[in-house]
């Protein structure tokens, strides 16, 4: 019996465990008492979703958090690509900035929050700084690697056709580094998303999925928290998938990996 080879059977098997877990959750909820506080009935999760969706709060939160993540991503990643190129092209920049970059990178991202809080307060600037930093690290590293490890076979061709430094960068180094730069960007997206949720949670206040979760925790609204978690996962997944599409399009010149 190899039932799990059949596609329909696979879907059924894949749903089995989640359904079991949900049933277990519901059972816990029905026991009542202190547990009912944590294990809210499934029906009330659905109700919370409907309520949040109808009031428009869910949309506001999702849009706020997503645009915050994307703003930080664009700022951090563009700074990261520029620095990565500079470090890759110029030894002096690499010598000067490299050690500093690697030192700063060791600090756990959210460990900067207390310091940044003292510097710029707990507002939007603090959040964007952390999100930007989250996107910055992987883009610098990957861009640098891509530029520094440009293949001799490609740069030779550039030399043969008398390319200037700028032409070499534009036509040889950057396209050659593109696969790695895109890898850096996909990591940046994941990190920026985590950082956005993290800063919203820790700095509370204002709109955003993290802030809503934080508030719901204070109000012991498990149903709201669960809805926010689901939406967080869904948006993260969508961002990753959309970027994977873009990456595939930009790298269409690469032979398909067998």
């Amino acid at each position, binding site marked *: 019996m190899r039932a799990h080879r059949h596609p329909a059977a696979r879907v059924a098997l894949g749903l*089995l465990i989640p359904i079991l877990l949900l049933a277990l959750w519901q059972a816990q909820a029905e026991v009542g008492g202190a547990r009912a506080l944590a294990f809210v009935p499934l029906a009330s999760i659905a109700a919370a979703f409907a309520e949040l969706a109808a009031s428009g709060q869910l949309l506001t939160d999702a849009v706020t958090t997503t645009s915050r993540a994307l703003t930080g991503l664009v700022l951090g990643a563009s700074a990261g690509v520029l620095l990565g190129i500079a470090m890759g092209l110029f030894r002096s920049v690499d010598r000067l900035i490299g050690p*500093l970059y690697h030192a700063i990178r060791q600090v756990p991202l959210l460990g900067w929050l207390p310091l940044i809080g*003292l510097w710029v307060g707990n507002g939007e600037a603090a959040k964007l700084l952390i999100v930007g930093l989250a996107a910055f690290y992987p883009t610098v590293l990957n861009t640098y690697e891509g530029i520094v490890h440009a293949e001799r076979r490609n740069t030779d061709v550039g030399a043969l056709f008398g390319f200037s430094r700028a032409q070499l960068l534009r036509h040889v180094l950057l396209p050659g580094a593109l696969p790695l730069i895109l890898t850096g960007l996909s990591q940046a997206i994941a990190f920026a998303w985590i950082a956005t949720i993290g800063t919203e949670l820790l700095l509370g206040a204002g709109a955003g999925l993290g802030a809503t979760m934080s508030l719901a925790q204070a109000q012991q609204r498990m149903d709201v928290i669960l809805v926010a978690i689901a939406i967080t996962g869904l948006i993260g997944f969508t961002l990753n998938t959309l970027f994977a599409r873009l990456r595939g399009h930009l790298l269409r010149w690469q032979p398909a990996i067998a």
Partner: protein
Amino acid sequence: MTSNLSRIGFGLAPLVALLLLWQAASAAGLFPPQVLVAPADVVAALLAMWRNGELVAHLSISLTRLLIGFGLGAAAGLAFGTALALSRLAEALFGPLFQALRQVPVLAFLPMLVLLLGIEERFKIVVVAIAAFFPVALAAFDGVRGVPRSHFEVAKLYRTPLLPFLGRILLPAATPPVLTGLRIGLTRAWLVLIACELLAAGSGIGQMMEMARQLFRIDVVLAGVFVSGLIGFLLDRGVKLIERRTLRWKAA
């Protein structure tokens, strides 16, 4: 050896220069003390906290949380990932759920876990374990799945018994990606632990920093940034060393 040392010296030179510059700027009163204090003050704060035992207490509690949580999460991740890779049935059962949960940033689970577990030790250890679980499970799955078919065929050809097969073939072949997964898991566990301690704790490096922030003790905050960075660096470097030792058989 000497050239290695001099290279490290060269690498550190800009950092040292920056510290000196920072010290000079602070001494000249370029920064208001509530914005940035001199590196010497940070060192002084570190020394003071070291002497009165505060730093050691915070550090040891944070590291204990990290090690227990990481140990549990990594072990669970290894077992789970390997099982999923070896059994198509396990993959069909747990794969979709795993992939779905993986989409959620671990930090997003914090409020839910606070409600389920409270904010005591249990909570922090579970969070750290979850942070370690996902990357390790993924790496174990990829590592075992990535073992070339030819290895299995050789084992079949020579009728290698299961245990030697696991120990002599599967384990060495899957080790490199798993070690990388462990390293990522450890770094992520440290990040999440600091976040947890910032959010809700009575002790630990993160709590130390958060308290200092509320008291406007920027020297202590900077000391915390330094210590957490150093720990992060040592953890990463430690696993990298193990990776290098274990992978000597692989072409560099």
